[in-house]
Protein backbone atom coordinates (compact mmCIF):
# COMPACT_ATOMS: atom_id res chain seq x y z
CA UNK A 1 0.00 0.00 0.00
CA UNK A 2 2.75 2.38 1.01
CA UNK A 3 4.63 1.64 -2.18
CA UNK A 4 1.46 2.05 -4.23
CA UNK A 5 0.79 5.53 -2.79
CA UNK A 6 4.42 6.54 -3.24
CA UNK A 7 4.47 5.35 -6.83
CA UNK A 8 1.33 7.20 -7.76
CA UNK A 9 2.61 10.35 -6.03
CA UNK A 10 5.88 10.08 -7.95
CA UNK A 11 3.97 9.59 -11.20
CA UNK A 12 1.76 12.56 -10.42
CA UNK A 13 4.73 14.79 -9.75
CA UNK A 14 6.49 13.68 -12.95
CA UNK A 15 3.29 14.23 -14.94
CA UNK A 16 2.98 17.67 -13.37
CA UNK A 17 6.46 18.61 -14.49
CA UNK A 18 5.80 17.45 -18.04
CA UNK A 19 2.45 19.24 -18.29
CA UNK A 20 4.00 22.47 -17.01
CA UNK A 21 6.93 22.22 -19.44
CA UNK A 22 4.51 21.73 -22.33
CA UNK A 23 2.35 24.59 -21.08
CA UNK A 24 5.32 26.94 -20.85
CA UNK A 25 7.11 25.93 -24.06
CA UNK A 26 4.40 24.92 -26.53
CA UNK A 27 2.80 28.39 -27.00
CA UNK A 28 6.26 29.86 -27.58
CA UNK A 29 6.97 27.17 -30.20
CA UNK A 30 3.67 27.97 -31.91
CA UNK A 31 4.50 31.69 -31.99
CA UNK A 32 7.99 31.06 -33.36
CA UNK A 33 6.63 28.73 -36.08
CA UNK A 34 3.86 31.18 -37.00
CA UNK A 35 6.33 34.04 -37.32
CA UNK A 36 7.85 32.19 -40.31
CA UNK A 37 4.45 31.70 -41.96
CA UNK A 38 4.58 32.37 -45.72
CA UNK A 39 0.86 33.13 -46.02
CA UNK A 40 -0.23 36.73 -46.48
CA UNK A 41 -2.99 36.47 -43.90
CA UNK A 42 -3.20 35.04 -40.39
CA UNK A 43 -4.14 31.44 -41.12
CA UNK A 44 -4.44 28.27 -39.06
CA UNK A 45 -1.48 26.70 -37.29
CA UNK A 46 0.69 25.03 -38.62
CA UNK A 47 1.68 27.11 -41.65
CA UNK A 48 1.88 25.22 -44.96
CA UNK A 49 4.97 27.11 -46.12
CA UNK A 50 7.67 29.14 -44.48
CA UNK A 51 9.28 32.47 -45.31
CA UNK A 52 10.83 35.54 -43.71
CA UNK A 53 8.09 37.88 -44.93
CA UNK A 54 6.97 39.04 -41.46
CA UNK A 55 10.54 39.85 -40.47
CA UNK A 56 10.98 41.83 -43.69
CA UNK A 57 7.69 43.49 -42.91
CA UNK A 58 8.88 44.44 -39.42
CA UNK A 59 12.10 45.98 -40.73
CA UNK A 60 10.29 47.96 -43.43
CA UNK A 61 7.54 49.28 -41.17
CA UNK A 62 8.38 52.77 -39.95
CA UNK A 63 5.91 52.46 -37.07
CA UNK A 64 7.76 49.54 -35.46
CA UNK A 65 11.21 50.86 -36.30
CA UNK A 66 10.52 54.23 -34.66
CA UNK A 67 9.28 52.38 -31.58
CA UNK A 68 12.37 50.17 -31.54
CA UNK A 69 14.71 53.16 -31.85
CA UNK A 70 12.91 55.00 -29.03
CA UNK A 71 12.95 51.87 -26.86
CA UNK A 72 16.68 51.34 -27.28
CA UNK A 73 17.56 55.00 -26.67
CA UNK A 74 15.23 55.11 -23.66
CA UNK A 75 16.56 51.86 -22.17
CA UNK A 76 20.15 53.06 -22.56
CA UNK A 77 19.62 56.45 -20.88
CA UNK A 78 17.41 54.88 -18.20
CA UNK A 79 20.09 52.31 -17.42
CA UNK A 80 22.81 54.95 -17.10
CA UNK A 81 20.76 57.27 -14.87
CA UNK A 82 19.25 54.64 -12.64
CA UNK A 83 22.47 52.67 -12.26
CA UNK A 84 24.39 55.81 -11.29
CA UNK A 85 21.77 56.90 -8.77
CA UNK A 86 21.20 53.35 -7.55
CA UNK A 87 24.88 52.55 -7.07
CA UNK A 88 25.57 55.76 -5.16
CA UNK A 89 22.51 55.25 -2.97
CA UNK A 90 23.55 51.65 -2.30
CA UNK A 91 27.09 52.70 -1.32
CA UNK A 92 25.67 55.27 1.08
CA UNK A 93 23.22 52.75 2.54
CA UNK A 94 25.98 50.20 2.97
CA UNK A 95 28.21 52.66 4.85
CA UNK A 96 25.55 54.29 6.91
CA UNK A 97 25.23 52.99 10.41
CA UNK A 98 22.65 54.54 12.65
CA UNK A 99 18.97 54.97 13.15
CA UNK A 100 16.62 54.62 10.20
CA UNK A 101 18.91 52.48 8.05
CA UNK A 102 16.19 49.89 7.53
CA UNK A 103 13.58 52.57 6.84
CA UNK A 104 15.87 54.26 4.32
CA UNK A 105 16.44 50.98 2.54
CA UNK A 106 12.76 50.11 2.27
CA UNK A 107 12.08 53.66 1.13
CA UNK A 108 14.35 53.18 -1.86
CA UNK A 109 12.83 49.80 -2.67
CA UNK A 110 9.26 51.10 -2.32
CA UNK A 111 8.63 51.80 -6.03
CA UNK A 112 8.60 48.00 -6.39
CA UNK A 113 5.38 47.64 -4.44
CA UNK A 114 3.45 50.43 -6.13
CA UNK A 115 1.52 48.85 -9.03
CA UNK A 116 2.98 49.99 -12.37
CA UNK A 117 -0.36 51.33 -13.57
CA UNK A 118 -0.56 53.57 -10.49
CA UNK A 119 2.94 54.92 -11.19
CA UNK A 120 2.04 55.56 -14.83
CA UNK A 121 -1.20 57.29 -13.93
CA UNK A 122 0.43 59.37 -11.18
CA UNK A 123 3.25 60.51 -13.47
CA UNK A 124 0.76 61.39 -16.20
CA UNK A 125 -1.13 63.71 -13.84
CA UNK A 126 2.03 65.13 -12.33
CA UNK A 127 3.76 65.88 -15.64
CA UNK A 128 0.58 67.50 -16.97
CA UNK A 129 0.41 69.68 -13.84
CA UNK A 130 3.99 70.88 -14.03
CA UNK A 131 3.79 71.32 -17.78
CA UNK A 132 6.04 68.56 -19.11
CA UNK A 133 4.49 67.39 -22.36
CA UNK A 134 7.48 65.98 -24.20
CA UNK A 135 6.86 62.26 -24.60
CA UNK A 136 10.47 61.15 -24.31
CA UNK A 137 11.10 63.10 -21.08
CA UNK A 138 7.94 61.68 -19.53
CA UNK A 139 8.85 58.12 -20.57
CA UNK A 140 12.34 58.58 -19.18
CA UNK A 141 10.93 59.69 -15.81
CA UNK A 142 8.65 56.67 -15.66
CA UNK A 143 11.34 54.18 -16.65
CA UNK A 144 13.89 55.58 -14.20
CA UNK A 145 11.60 55.22 -11.21
CA UNK A 146 10.57 51.65 -12.03
CA UNK A 147 14.14 50.46 -12.60
CA UNK A 148 15.84 52.39 -9.78
CA UNK A 149 14.92 49.91 -6.98
CA UNK A 150 16.48 47.02 -8.89
CA UNK A 151 19.83 48.76 -9.23
CA UNK A 152 19.81 49.68 -5.52
CA UNK A 153 18.92 46.17 -4.49
CA UNK A 154 21.44 44.24 -6.58
CA UNK A 155 24.30 46.66 -5.81
CA UNK A 156 23.51 46.49 -2.13
CA UNK A 157 23.47 42.69 -2.27
CA UNK A 158 26.91 42.82 -3.92
CA UNK A 159 28.32 45.29 -1.37
CA UNK A 160 27.11 43.49 1.72
CA UNK A 161 29.37 40.54 0.94
CA UNK A 162 32.54 42.68 0.87
CA UNK A 163 34.43 42.69 4.12
CA UNK A 164 35.00 46.14 5.61
CA UNK A 165 38.45 44.98 6.79
CA UNK A 166 39.68 45.01 3.17
CA UNK A 167 39.00 48.74 2.85
CA UNK A 168 40.48 49.36 6.28
CA UNK A 169 43.60 47.41 5.34
CA UNK A 170 44.03 49.48 2.18
CA UNK A 171 43.59 52.69 4.13
CA UNK A 172 46.04 51.64 6.83
CA UNK A 173 48.56 51.01 4.04
CA UNK A 174 48.19 54.62 3.03
CA UNK A 175 45.37 54.65 0.45
CA UNK A 176 42.91 57.50 0.63
CA UNK A 177 39.25 56.70 1.12
CA UNK A 178 38.62 57.41 -2.56
CA UNK A 179 41.51 55.25 -3.72
CA UNK A 180 40.40 52.40 -1.45
CA UNK A 181 36.93 52.62 -2.92
CA UNK A 182 38.03 52.53 -6.57
CA UNK A 183 40.73 49.89 -6.04
CA UNK A 184 39.00 47.57 -3.59
CA UNK A 185 35.26 48.06 -3.17
CA UNK A 186 34.28 48.89 -6.74
CA UNK A 187 35.92 45.89 -8.47
CA UNK A 188 34.43 43.54 -5.89
CA UNK A 189 30.96 45.08 -6.22
CA UNK A 190 31.05 44.99 -10.01
CA UNK A 191 28.91 41.88 -10.46
CA UNK A 192 26.08 43.38 -8.41
CA UNK A 193 26.27 46.60 -10.39
CA UNK A 194 26.25 44.77 -13.73
CA UNK A 195 23.27 42.67 -12.65
CA UNK A 196 21.40 45.84 -11.68
CA UNK A 197 22.18 47.48 -15.01
CA UNK A 198 21.05 44.37 -16.92
CA UNK A 199 17.78 44.28 -14.95
CA UNK A 200 17.22 48.00 -15.54
CA UNK A 201 17.77 47.63 -19.29
CA UNK A 202 15.51 44.57 -19.49
CA UNK A 203 12.65 46.10 -17.50
CA UNK A 204 12.85 49.32 -19.46
CA UNK A 205 12.68 47.42 -22.76
CA UNK A 206 9.68 45.39 -21.56
CA UNK A 207 7.49 47.92 -19.80
CA UNK A 208 3.97 48.52 -21.06
CA UNK A 209 1.90 49.57 -18.05
CA UNK A 210 3.84 52.76 -17.26
CA UNK A 211 4.74 53.67 -20.85
CA UNK A 212 1.18 53.48 -22.16
CA UNK A 213 0.25 56.52 -20.04
CA UNK A 214 3.28 58.58 -20.94
CA UNK A 215 3.67 58.15 -24.69
CA UNK A 216 3.00 60.90 -27.17
CA UNK A 217 2.29 60.41 -30.88
CA UNK A 218 5.96 60.87 -31.77
CA UNK A 219 7.52 59.16 -28.74
CA UNK A 220 6.34 55.63 -28.17
CA UNK A 221 8.21 52.47 -27.29
CA UNK A 222 8.25 49.17 -29.18
CA UNK A 223 6.06 47.37 -26.58
CA UNK A 224 3.50 50.19 -26.80
CA UNK A 225 3.50 49.89 -30.60
CA UNK A 226 3.06 46.12 -30.30
CA UNK A 227 0.20 46.42 -27.83
CA UNK A 228 -1.71 48.85 -30.01
CA UNK A 229 -1.20 46.59 -33.03
CA UNK A 230 -2.32 43.58 -31.01
CA UNK A 231 -5.57 45.29 -30.13
CA UNK A 232 -6.40 46.50 -33.61
CA UNK A 233 -5.21 44.03 -36.21
CA UNK A 234 -4.21 40.44 -36.46
CA UNK A 235 -0.99 40.30 -38.30
CA UNK A 236 2.07 38.15 -37.75
CA UNK A 237 4.52 41.06 -37.68
CA UNK A 238 3.86 41.05 -33.92
CA UNK A 239 4.95 37.42 -33.75
CA UNK A 240 8.17 38.30 -35.61
CA UNK A 241 8.78 41.19 -33.21
CA UNK A 242 8.07 38.86 -30.28
CA UNK A 243 10.63 36.34 -31.55
CA UNK A 244 13.24 39.09 -31.70
CA UNK A 245 12.38 40.18 -28.16
CA UNK A 246 12.84 36.56 -27.13
CA UNK A 247 16.28 36.37 -28.68
CA UNK A 248 17.05 39.52 -26.72
CA UNK A 249 15.97 37.76 -23.48
CA UNK A 250 18.17 34.81 -24.36
CA UNK A 251 21.21 37.05 -24.87
CA UNK A 252 20.44 38.70 -21.54
CA UNK A 253 20.45 35.35 -19.73
CA UNK A 254 23.79 34.52 -21.33
CA UNK A 255 25.22 37.87 -20.19
CA UNK A 256 23.94 37.26 -16.66
CA UNK A 257 25.43 33.78 -16.64
CA UNK A 258 28.80 35.04 -17.89
CA UNK A 259 29.01 37.96 -15.46
CA UNK A 260 27.49 36.56 -12.28
CA UNK A 261 26.69 32.95 -12.91
CA UNK A 262 23.08 31.81 -12.70
CA UNK A 263 23.82 29.71 -9.65
CA UNK A 264 25.05 32.72 -7.72
CA UNK A 265 21.89 34.58 -8.69
CA UNK A 266 19.78 31.89 -7.05
CA UNK A 267 22.22 30.66 -4.43
CA UNK A 268 22.92 27.04 -3.70
CA UNK A 269 21.30 26.85 -0.31
CA UNK A 270 22.72 25.82 3.02
CA UNK A 271 22.58 22.08 2.61
CA UNK A 272 24.42 21.48 -0.64
CA UNK A 273 27.92 20.21 -0.61
Amino acid at each position, binding site marked *: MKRYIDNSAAWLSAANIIVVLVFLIFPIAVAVTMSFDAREYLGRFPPPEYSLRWYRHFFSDAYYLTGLATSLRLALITTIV*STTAGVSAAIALDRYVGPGKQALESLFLSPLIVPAVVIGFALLLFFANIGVFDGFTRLL*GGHIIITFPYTVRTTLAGLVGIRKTLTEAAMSLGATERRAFWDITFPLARTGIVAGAVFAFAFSMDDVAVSLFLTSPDSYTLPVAMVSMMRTNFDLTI*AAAAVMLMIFTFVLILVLDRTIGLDRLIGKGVFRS
Partner: protein
Amino acid sequence: MKYSRSTALLLLPGFALFLALLVLPLANVLDESFRLFEPGRIGSAKDAAYTLFNYAEILTPSYLRYFAETFKFGVLSSLIALVVAFPIAYAVARQPSPILRKLAIGFLIGMMFLSTLVRVNALQLTFGPTGYGQLLSGLLNVSPNGRFYTELVVVFGLLHYLIPIAAITLLGTIQNLDPRLIDASQVLGASRLRSHLSITVPLCIPGLLSAFMICFTLCLSAFVVPMILGKGKVLFVSNLIYSRFSEIADYPSGSAVAITMLIVALITIYGITWMVSKRYGNLK
Protein backbone atom coordinates in the same frame (compact mmCIF):
# COMPACT_ATOMS: atom_id res chain seq x y z
CA MET B 1 31.18 60.53 11.91
CA LYS B 2 33.63 61.15 9.16
CA TYR B 3 31.62 59.65 6.32
CA SER B 4 28.45 61.55 7.02
CA ARG B 5 28.83 64.39 4.50
CA SER B 6 29.83 62.22 1.59
CA THR B 7 27.15 59.70 2.57
CA ALA B 8 24.48 62.38 2.41
CA LEU B 9 25.83 63.48 -0.96
CA LEU B 10 25.65 59.95 -2.29
CA LEU B 11 22.05 59.63 -1.19
CA LEU B 12 21.10 62.86 -2.89
CA PRO B 13 20.45 61.62 -6.48
CA GLY B 14 18.34 58.74 -5.22
CA PHE B 15 16.34 61.03 -2.96
CA ALA B 16 15.79 63.54 -5.75
CA LEU B 17 14.50 60.85 -8.13
CA PHE B 18 12.36 59.35 -5.44
CA LEU B 19 10.82 62.69 -4.48
CA ALA B 20 10.24 63.96 -8.02
CA LEU B 21 9.06 60.73 -9.61
CA LEU B 22 7.18 58.97 -6.84
CA VAL B 23 6.32 61.07 -3.77
CA LEU B 24 5.13 64.24 -5.49
CA PRO B 25 3.18 62.38 -8.21
CA LEU B 26 1.46 60.19 -5.61
CA ALA B 27 0.64 63.26 -3.48
CA ASN B 28 -0.82 64.82 -6.59
CA VAL B 29 -2.98 61.73 -7.19
CA LEU B 30 -4.16 61.81 -3.58
CA ASP B 31 -5.22 65.44 -3.95
CA GLU B 32 -6.89 64.80 -7.31
CA SER B 33 -8.82 61.85 -5.88
CA PHE B 34 -10.79 64.21 -3.61
CA ARG B 35 -11.65 66.67 -6.39
CA LEU B 36 -15.00 67.10 -8.03
CA PHE B 37 -15.09 66.07 -11.68
CA GLU B 38 -17.18 67.90 -14.25
CA PRO B 39 -17.95 65.69 -17.27
CA GLY B 40 -16.47 66.92 -20.50
CA ARG B 41 -13.25 68.26 -19.02
CA ILE B 42 -9.87 66.60 -19.00
CA GLY B 43 -9.19 66.08 -15.33
CA SER B 44 -10.48 68.40 -12.63
CA ALA B 45 -10.45 72.18 -12.68
CA LYS B 46 -7.57 73.89 -10.83
CA ASP B 47 -9.85 75.10 -8.04
CA ALA B 48 -12.42 72.28 -8.09
CA ALA B 49 -14.22 71.65 -4.82
CA TYR B 50 -13.17 68.79 -2.53
CA THR B 51 -15.52 65.82 -2.32
CA LEU B 52 -15.67 62.19 -1.21
CA PHE B 53 -17.79 61.31 -4.21
CA ASN B 54 -14.97 59.50 -6.06
CA TYR B 55 -14.45 57.11 -3.18
CA ALA B 56 -18.18 56.61 -2.58
CA GLU B 57 -18.44 55.63 -6.23
CA ILE B 58 -15.96 52.78 -5.73
CA LEU B 59 -18.35 51.18 -3.24
CA THR B 60 -21.07 50.81 -5.88
CA PRO B 61 -21.47 47.32 -7.36
CA SER B 62 -20.34 48.32 -10.84
CA TYR B 63 -16.93 49.36 -9.45
CA LEU B 64 -16.62 46.66 -6.82
CA ARG B 65 -16.98 44.15 -9.63
CA TYR B 66 -13.53 45.09 -10.93
CA PHE B 67 -11.99 44.55 -7.51
CA ALA B 68 -13.84 41.27 -7.04
CA GLU B 69 -12.71 40.07 -10.45
CA THR B 70 -9.08 41.02 -9.80
CA PHE B 71 -9.17 39.21 -6.46
CA LYS B 72 -10.83 36.12 -7.87
CA PHE B 73 -8.29 35.74 -10.64
CA GLY B 74 -5.42 36.67 -8.35
CA VAL B 75 -6.20 34.11 -5.63
CA LEU B 76 -7.09 31.33 -8.08
CA SER B 77 -4.05 31.78 -10.31
CA SER B 78 -1.63 32.22 -7.40
CA LEU B 79 -2.87 29.03 -5.72
CA ILE B 80 -2.61 27.01 -8.94
CA ALA B 81 0.87 28.44 -9.55
CA LEU B 82 2.04 27.40 -6.06
CA VAL B 83 0.65 23.87 -6.26
CA VAL B 84 2.13 23.32 -9.71
CA ALA B 85 5.47 25.02 -9.02
CA PHE B 86 6.23 23.27 -5.74
CA PRO B 87 7.15 19.83 -7.17
CA ILE B 88 9.18 21.53 -9.88
CA ALA B 89 11.13 23.61 -7.35
CA TYR B 90 11.70 20.48 -5.28
CA ALA B 91 12.98 18.49 -8.26
CA VAL B 92 15.40 21.30 -9.19
CA ALA B 93 16.59 21.85 -5.62
CA ARG B 94 17.42 18.16 -5.16
CA GLN B 95 18.74 17.63 -8.68
CA PRO B 96 22.04 15.74 -8.35
CA SER B 97 23.35 16.48 -11.86
CA PRO B 98 24.91 19.96 -12.02
CA ILE B 99 24.29 20.26 -15.76
CA LEU B 100 20.58 19.45 -15.49
CA ARG B 101 20.33 21.79 -12.55
CA LYS B 102 21.92 24.65 -14.41
CA LEU B 103 19.73 24.03 -17.45
CA ALA B 104 16.61 24.00 -15.29
CA ILE B 105 17.56 27.21 -13.50
CA GLY B 106 18.48 28.88 -16.79
CA PHE B 107 15.14 27.83 -18.22
CA LEU B 108 13.18 29.16 -15.24
CA ILE B 109 15.05 32.48 -15.22
CA GLY B 110 14.59 32.77 -18.99
CA MET B 111 10.85 32.13 -18.63
CA MET B 112 10.69 34.72 -15.88
CA PHE B 113 12.44 37.37 -17.96
CA LEU B 114 10.45 36.65 -21.09
CA SER B 115 8.65 39.76 -22.25
CA THR B 116 4.95 39.87 -21.32
CA LEU B 117 4.18 40.71 -24.92
CA VAL B 118 5.87 37.55 -26.15
CA ARG B 119 3.72 35.46 -23.80
CA VAL B 120 0.51 37.26 -24.61
CA ASN B 121 1.12 36.97 -28.33
CA ALA B 122 2.11 33.30 -28.04
CA LEU B 123 -0.99 32.46 -25.99
CA GLN B 124 -3.18 34.43 -28.38
CA LEU B 125 -1.85 32.43 -31.33
CA THR B 126 -2.02 29.09 -29.49
CA PHE B 127 -5.41 29.37 -27.83
CA GLY B 128 -7.03 31.71 -30.34
CA PRO B 129 -9.18 30.79 -33.35
CA THR B 130 -6.19 30.08 -35.61
CA GLY B 131 -4.52 27.84 -33.03
CA TYR B 132 -6.12 25.23 -30.81
CA GLY B 133 -8.99 27.41 -29.58
CA GLN B 134 -11.63 25.35 -31.40
CA LEU B 135 -10.16 22.08 -30.22
CA LEU B 136 -9.81 23.05 -26.56
CA SER B 137 -13.18 24.75 -26.27
CA GLY B 138 -14.72 21.73 -28.01
CA LEU B 139 -13.10 19.39 -25.48
CA LEU B 140 -14.44 21.50 -22.61
CA ASN B 141 -17.79 21.83 -24.36
CA VAL B 142 -17.87 25.64 -24.15
CA SER B 143 -18.06 28.35 -26.79
CA PRO B 144 -14.64 29.68 -27.88
CA ASN B 145 -16.11 33.19 -27.71
CA GLY B 146 -17.86 32.66 -24.40
CA ARG B 147 -16.97 34.10 -21.04
CA PHE B 148 -15.66 30.87 -19.55
CA TYR B 149 -13.14 30.26 -22.31
CA THR B 150 -11.92 33.87 -22.16
CA GLU B 151 -11.47 33.58 -18.39
CA LEU B 152 -9.54 30.35 -18.89
CA VAL B 153 -7.15 32.01 -21.34
CA VAL B 154 -6.63 34.92 -18.92
CA VAL B 155 -5.72 32.42 -16.18
CA PHE B 156 -3.30 30.76 -18.64
CA GLY B 157 -1.78 34.16 -19.31
CA LEU B 158 -1.26 34.81 -15.60
CA LEU B 159 0.06 31.30 -14.94
CA HIS B 160 2.56 31.56 -17.75
CA TYR B 161 4.53 34.08 -15.76
CA LEU B 162 3.52 33.13 -12.22
CA ILE B 163 4.76 29.52 -12.45
CA PRO B 164 8.44 30.37 -13.18
CA ILE B 165 8.45 33.08 -10.50
CA ALA B 166 6.81 30.81 -7.92
CA ALA B 167 9.25 28.00 -8.76
CA ILE B 168 12.29 30.27 -8.36
CA THR B 169 11.02 31.70 -5.06
CA LEU B 170 10.27 28.23 -3.68
CA LEU B 171 13.61 26.93 -4.92
CA GLY B 172 15.37 29.19 -2.41
CA THR B 173 13.20 27.93 0.44
CA ILE B 174 13.55 24.24 -0.38
CA GLN B 175 17.32 24.52 -0.76
CA ASN B 176 17.58 25.68 2.83
CA LEU B 177 15.74 22.64 4.09
CA ASP B 178 17.85 19.93 5.68
CA PRO B 179 17.41 16.84 3.45
CA ARG B 180 18.35 14.61 6.40
CA LEU B 181 14.95 15.34 7.97
CA ILE B 182 13.26 13.51 5.11
CA ASP B 183 15.71 10.62 5.35
CA ALA B 184 15.11 10.41 9.09
CA SER B 185 11.34 10.27 8.74
CA GLN B 186 11.62 7.56 6.09
CA VAL B 187 13.97 5.53 8.22
CA LEU B 188 11.32 5.77 10.92
CA GLY B 189 8.79 4.24 8.54
CA ALA B 190 6.99 7.14 6.84
CA SER B 191 6.16 6.81 3.16
CA ARG B 192 7.79 9.32 0.82
CA LEU B 193 4.51 11.10 0.28
CA ARG B 194 3.79 11.18 3.99
CA SER B 195 7.22 12.53 4.88
CA HIS B 196 6.82 15.32 2.32
CA LEU B 197 3.36 16.18 3.57
CA SER B 198 4.33 16.22 7.21
CA ILE B 199 7.87 17.64 6.95
CA THR B 200 8.70 19.39 3.67
CA VAL B 201 5.42 21.24 3.22
CA PRO B 202 5.02 22.53 6.82
CA LEU B 203 8.64 23.72 6.91
CA CYS B 204 8.08 25.54 3.63
CA ILE B 205 5.01 27.45 4.79
CA PRO B 206 6.86 30.78 5.21
CA GLY B 207 8.31 30.35 1.72
CA LEU B 208 4.91 29.36 0.33
CA LEU B 209 3.33 32.42 1.93
CA SER B 210 5.90 34.79 0.49
CA ALA B 211 5.64 33.12 -2.92
CA PHE B 212 1.87 33.56 -2.69
CA MET B 213 2.36 37.20 -1.81
CA ILE B 214 4.63 37.78 -4.80
CA CYS B 215 2.21 36.01 -7.16
CA PHE B 216 -0.83 37.76 -5.77
CA THR B 217 0.67 41.25 -5.97
CA LEU B 218 1.77 40.53 -9.54
CA CYS B 219 -1.84 39.55 -10.35
CA LEU B 220 -3.16 42.71 -8.66
CA SER B 221 -1.05 44.84 -10.96
CA ALA B 222 -1.46 42.66 -14.06
CA PHE B 223 -2.38 44.89 -16.92
CA VAL B 224 -1.46 43.60 -20.37
CA VAL B 225 -2.77 40.06 -19.79
CA PRO B 226 -6.37 41.07 -19.00
CA MET B 227 -6.26 43.89 -21.55
CA ILE B 228 -5.29 41.67 -24.49
CA LEU B 229 -6.34 38.15 -23.53
CA GLY B 230 -9.48 39.32 -21.65
CA LYS B 231 -10.82 40.85 -24.90
CA GLY B 232 -12.86 43.39 -22.94
CA LYS B 233 -14.76 40.64 -21.11
CA VAL B 234 -12.30 40.28 -18.23
CA LEU B 235 -11.14 43.59 -16.78
CA PHE B 236 -8.90 44.13 -13.77
CA VAL B 237 -8.63 47.23 -11.59
CA SER B 238 -5.58 48.35 -13.57
CA ASN B 239 -7.66 48.31 -16.75
CA LEU B 240 -10.28 50.44 -15.01
CA ILE B 241 -7.61 53.04 -14.17
CA TYR B 242 -6.40 52.99 -17.75
CA SER B 243 -9.90 53.50 -19.12
CA ARG B 244 -10.30 56.54 -16.83
CA PHE B 245 -7.37 58.00 -18.70
CA SER B 246 -7.89 56.77 -22.24
CA GLU B 247 -11.68 56.85 -22.58
CA ILE B 248 -13.29 59.56 -20.48
CA ALA B 249 -10.39 61.51 -18.90
CA ASP B 250 -12.10 61.38 -15.50
CA TYR B 251 -8.83 61.78 -13.60
CA PRO B 252 -10.40 62.30 -10.14
CA SER B 253 -12.19 58.95 -10.38
CA GLY B 254 -9.08 57.26 -11.78
CA SER B 255 -7.07 58.73 -8.89
CA ALA B 256 -9.47 57.39 -6.28
CA VAL B 257 -9.26 53.93 -7.85
CA ALA B 258 -5.45 54.19 -8.00
CA ILE B 259 -5.20 55.17 -4.32
CA THR B 260 -7.54 52.34 -3.32
CA MET B 261 -5.51 49.87 -5.39
CA LEU B 262 -2.29 51.07 -3.81
CA ILE B 263 -3.74 50.64 -0.31
CA VAL B 264 -4.95 47.14 -1.15
CA ALA B 265 -1.49 46.22 -2.47
CA LEU B 266 0.23 47.62 0.64
CA ILE B 267 -2.14 45.80 2.99
CA THR B 268 -1.52 42.52 1.15
CA ILE B 269 2.26 42.89 1.22
CA TYR B 270 2.64 44.12 4.78
CA GLY B 271 -0.09 41.80 6.06
CA ILE B 272 1.59 38.67 4.73
CA THR B 273 5.11 39.82 5.65
CA TRP B 274 3.94 40.59 9.17
CA MET B 275 2.22 37.22 9.45
CA VAL B 276 5.33 35.37 8.27
CA SER B 277 7.72 37.20 10.58
CA LYS B 278 5.42 36.98 13.58
CA ARG B 279 4.50 33.35 13.32
CA TYR B 280 7.55 31.87 11.66
CA GLY B 281 10.25 34.32 12.65
CA ASN B 282 11.68 31.77 15.08
CA LEU B 283 12.27 29.24 12.28
CA LYS B 284 15.04 31.28 10.74
